[in-house]
């Protein structure tokens, strides 16, 4: 195997890997921001301008994390001497990248879920129904909006 052919293999691996990682990251980030906005709108009802801001910041973090990781793992070195090795190296790298993107993506979804849940819980009535109503001077309101496990 000549030096030129090896270099050719490496360059091919790098080109495919770089374009795939950038493309995937951009596509995922766009998907995340488009669909995450729905969650965030629901969370920041009190301050609607927060939703796009938080969304934007999350996406920037996503880009930084993913592209940084993708470029750090770019180096293939001596693993791509023959065309077969080059294919294998490319597949292993793309696989690792996809797996880590998947983990980060689900982490992001969990984050959205947590943010939304915290906001919802702030407005929730107590989880149990009151046992009786005690008339107090000055407040005749009877509250009746709860679903309880007890009583």
């Amino acid at each position, binding site marked *: 195997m000549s030096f030129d052919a090896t270099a050719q293999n490496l360059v091919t691996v790098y080109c495919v890997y770089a374009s795939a990682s950038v493309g995937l990251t951009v596509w995922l980030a766009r998907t995340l921001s488009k669909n995450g906005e729905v969650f965030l*709108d629901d969370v920041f*009802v*009190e301050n*609607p301008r927060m939703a796009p801001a938080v969304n934007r910041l999350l996406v920037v973090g996503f880009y930084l994390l993913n592209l940084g990781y993708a470029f750090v793992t770019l180096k293939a070195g001596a693993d791509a001497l023959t065309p077969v090795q080059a294919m294998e190296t490319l597949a292993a790298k793309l696989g690792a990248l996809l797996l880590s993107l998947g983990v980060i993506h689900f982490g992001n979804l969990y984050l959205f879920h947590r943010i939304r*849940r915290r906001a919802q*819980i*702030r*407005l*929730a*009535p*107590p*989880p*149990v*129904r*009151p*046992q*009786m*109503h*005690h*008339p*107090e001077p000055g*407040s005749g*309101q*009877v*509250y009746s*909006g709860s679903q*309880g*496990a*007890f*009583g």
Partner: protein
Amino acid sequence: MDTALWLSNVEARADEKFARARYPRTLAILFDPSCALCRRCVHWMQHQASYVPLSFMPCTGEQARARYGDIPWLGDELVVVSDAGEVWVGPAGFLTCLWALEEYREWSFRLAGPAFAPLAERFFLALSHRRRALAFLFEPKCKDGTCSLGR
């Protein structure tokens, strides 16, 4: 999309959400002042961040008897009364206390859910009935559970 329209949509949804949410604005917690464990729990609650203002009243005090004397469980069980006159007693009272605390509201829903409710109910009942014996556990010299536990 038109920003003004979007903002007004979000604001409308926010108004609707706040109008729907009916929850107690304040809670009065009637505890047993002759039980060391109860006093310690009250002390602990006073140092937690809460979603609604809490007032603590010894259930044998004059104020408590004058205002809430007709609640049949007063003195036997933990009693929690909201500004609207809802009364939670025993296990439901414990869960309402958790609901009021910022750190533990999520736990109040978890414990009131189908998985934990039977267990939680039994646990809080047992805790309440053995409250004096439990003070003895914390401080062996405290025979009748009415001493003051270290804070």
